[in-house]
């Protein structure tokens, strides 16, 4: 019954409640799918059979008593940056090999409490730095739609797992687009909540002021259910907000009477593919037909966003990654003469090229004499970008655009040129700088590969983003499909 791996949450939940299937069977179907296909896709770094057996068992007990909620028994994959007690968690890095956190982070903990069943840990770019998952310290993940192409990144493993039917839902993190961009190029739904909506406790930090945890799913509704389960104030995260959990308010009300803004600058970005632009235009027309009013808006500081982002994110990462020093956990080079040599060799051998590049960039940007010219100026740009969005949202309820200017690109095609990789995030990182909620929903194909439509909403208006995305999904009939990747030539 391979279709079990193509269900949405609400479909699966219905079958579970009717006892047509058990949580155990649902897990077994996914494990079978993983066995068949993951050797090709390589979405997972590790599997957690002890957890899935125990959690599926608990879910079935609850279901047999008529208890449980929408996530009870739902198989989930977790990005390698989210700490789960006793499960090796390495942020895709060799430097954390063997590290088993003594605690479970808040977001994952809330999903477990809601009855989700963890299948395993998914691959990602090292410390979530990258847009292709090629910076993983272990191996690259392949796009299920074309195994010669990347799944996007940094949460490429989580996106690919859901796209390939290797998990019903998964968790990622989004610092500059790391959920939305892989969701777009893998043809699934991916959502980054408002900064502060989901607790970051347990998320191995890349850039603290930008990071957010969010879901991947095969429908907008599924994404909303996972988000709802994770959202809310956490006393362990001082940046999480005490606000009503209203993310699913008016979910199915449609877009009639809503005003949707199309930022002119987002249509003009460098490297925008024709096929992507066309697919997004069609999607916007679909929304218009569904009753939305389409208006042009401006985000005049878009050009400076990338530069500001690549100062702020590396600056924070240079500090966040200082704790990986070989003293307390993870890798530690021991055949050294002194502590300085231990630091240097552990970090040189433990971190990959991109991580070292960003640590150096950030260290430089924070250095005395350069702080004002780089870090402080970048923060000012960030304020201007926030203001751009405030102005735009005074003219519209939500912003719609392409998620990624390009479809999935071939493995290895951008690794030599970091800037070309950074450009993948040009349409998403504004949302991080401004702390906005954003969602990517599949909107057709270009060159036989998925294209994503991004919906950005004002802070704390996940309900608006979800409502627009849901309205598009309903009006277009475009649904996240599970492709059937075949072994390409030359690989076994």
């Amino acid at each position, binding site marked *: 019954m391979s279709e079990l791996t193509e269900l949405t949450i609400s479909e699966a939940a219905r079958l579970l409640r009717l006892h047509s299937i058990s949580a155990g069977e649902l897990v077994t179907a996914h494990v079978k799918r993983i066995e068949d296909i993951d050797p090709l896709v390589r979405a997972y770094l590790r599997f957690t059979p002890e957890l899935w057996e125990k959690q599926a068992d608990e879910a079935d007990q609850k279901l047999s008593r008529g208890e449980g909620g929408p996530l009870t028994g739902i198989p989930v994959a977790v990005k390698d940056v989210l700490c789960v007690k006793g499960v090796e968690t390495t*942020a895709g890095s060799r430097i954390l090999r063997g590290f088993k956190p003594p605690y479970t982070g808040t977001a994952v903990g809330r999903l477990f409490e809601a009855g989700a069943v963890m299948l395993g840990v998914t691959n990602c770019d090292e410390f979530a730095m990258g847009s292709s998952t090629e910076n993983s310290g272990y191996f690259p993940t392949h796009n299920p739609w074309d195994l010669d192409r990347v799944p996007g990144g940094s949460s490429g493993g989580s996106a690919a797992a859901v796209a390939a039917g290797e998990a019903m839902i998964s968790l990622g993190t989004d610092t500059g687009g790391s959920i939305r961009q892989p969701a777009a190029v893998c043809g699934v739904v991916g959502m980054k909540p408002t900064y502060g909506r989901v607790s970051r406790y347990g*998320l191995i930090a890349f850039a603290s002021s930008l990071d957010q945890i969010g879901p991947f799913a095969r429908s907008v509704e599924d994404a909303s259910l996972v988000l709802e389960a994770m959202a809310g104030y956490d006393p362990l995260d001082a*940046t999480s907000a005490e606000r009503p959990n209203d993310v699913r308010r008016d979910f199915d009300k449609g877009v009639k009477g809503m005003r949707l803004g199309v930022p002119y600058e987002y249509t003009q970005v460098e490297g925008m593919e024709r096929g992507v632009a066309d697919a997004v235009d069609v999607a916007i027309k679909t929304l218009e037909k569904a009753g939305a009013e389409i208006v042009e808006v401006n985000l005049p500081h878009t050009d400076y966003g990338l530069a500001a982002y690549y100062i702020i994110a590396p600056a924070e990462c*240079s*500090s966040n990654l200082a*704790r990986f020093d070989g003293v*307390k*956990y993870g890798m530690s080079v021991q055949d050294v003469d*002194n502590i300085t040599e231990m630091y240097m060799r552990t970090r040189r051998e433990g971190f990959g090229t991109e991580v070292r590049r960003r640590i150096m960039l950030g260290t430089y940007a924070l*250095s005395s004499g350069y702080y004002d010219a780089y870090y402080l100026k970048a923060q000012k740009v960030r304020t201007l970008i926030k203001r751009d969005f405030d102005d735009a949202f005074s003219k519209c309820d939500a912003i719609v655009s392409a998620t990624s200017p390009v479809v999935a690109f071939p493995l290895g095609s951008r690794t030599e040129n970091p800037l070309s990789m950074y450009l993948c995030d040009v349409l998403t990182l504004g949302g991080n700088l401004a702390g906005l909620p954003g969602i990517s929903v599949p909107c057709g194909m270009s060159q036989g590969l998925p294209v994503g439509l991004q919906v950005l909403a004002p802070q704390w208006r996940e309900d608006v983003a979800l409502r627009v995305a849901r309205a598009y999904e309903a009006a277009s009939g475009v649904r996240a499909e599970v492709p059937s990747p075949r072994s390409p030539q030359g690989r076994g």
Partner: protein
Amino acid sequence: MSWNVVIGMEIHVQPRTRTKMFCGCAVGQLGDPPNSNVCEICLGMPGVLPVINKAAVEACLKTALALKCEIPIHTKFDRKNYMYPDLPKGYQISQYDLPMSVNGFLEVGGRKVRIRRVHLEEDTGKLIHAGDKLNKAWESFVDLNRAGVPLMEIVSEPDIRGADEARDYAQELRTLLRTIGASEAEMEKGQLRCEPNISIRRYDSDDLGVKTELKNINSFRALHRAIEFEIKRQIQVVESGGTVVQETRGWSESEQRTFSQRSKEFAEDYRYFPEPDLPPLQLDRAWIEDLRRELPELPGSRRARLVAQYGLPVADAALIAADRDLADLFEAAAKTSGDNKRTANWVIGEVAPSGRLPSPIHLAEIVTLVGTGKITRDQGREVLAESMRDGASPAEIVATRGLSQVSDPAAVRATVEAVLADNPKAVSDYRAGRVRVIDFLAAQIIKRAPQVDRALANELLKELLR
């Protein structure tokens, strides 16, 4: 040549809190087993986040208010980045350009020492080396019990003029902190750590000299000695044609000297930036006003009031005002006994060294019993001790133990006569001019009758010897 001394003090104080600065771990005590008061947060595990301890903020604000500091509307925490094995995150959460408070002062012996800032930060862990220094040790151990313990850093302007004043400043600060309940401020327990910055300059010059910073100071006495040593050393260096090097110097208690620890010629770049895990604080002004209103009378003004209101000598007032409990006891007991000077003597001479506190009514009773001659001073001490031990009233103790002074003139005269009869040689010596024998005879009287009214006995002794 004559030299002026310029000293600024950085004092780290552990505020009185149950838990650490950014996590729920107990602050623990000296001597706890290594790494017993730790959790994933203060261990700097991947994925953890800090949460501000409100009790630490409150202690810092109370301290700032007591030091007459301004409390800005906006304050924030920053990261101070440097790598060291006792610093689990690779950065210390501290406050850089927007500290919790600025521009206060503390009066020390009538002079104002200006306070530049009081801010909050977290302590680091501790390294134990098998071998010499970190870079030469063959094995090093990390104890993170102290990591994340809250610290207030109180920074003075360079207004202090010598070792005496530096010690007085630190002691005055300690008294203040204890009075307002912001800290136990026990130097021996590491709850108050002094780091003086010292420089010298020619008495006729306004140019500041090169400063050295002293560390490893574990007592007020060590503070005084270390500064004295350092002043002498700097003068010697300059007078012999050398120059003082900007550096951190440690105080060696065993050798009673300072030694060079770290050169500060090349300032380390800490790459401070705002802590993104903690939103900037906008402190509730009403809360601050509540704290200001709730501050007890501060030691300086209480000292002045004890002199003015109770007529105490300045030295006595200072001793009593230094301890809020003693001062409260004194005021309550003096009001009951009506004898300020004697009450002060009992508080300073008997209560303070005992480390215990009697009830003010009991103390007043004892002051009165001794003052009116009902019991002797020695008996008063015993009664006080027993009263502090059992909480019994002095009147009861005197009654049950049959203590009371013998002041009936006939009875006292009989005792004196009996002593004189027993010591004919002493009597004849006295009469022959060896007048100091009278002390021996007085002692014999007390030996025979401990409860005798001594003043009366001495009077009669002189009379009968004539």
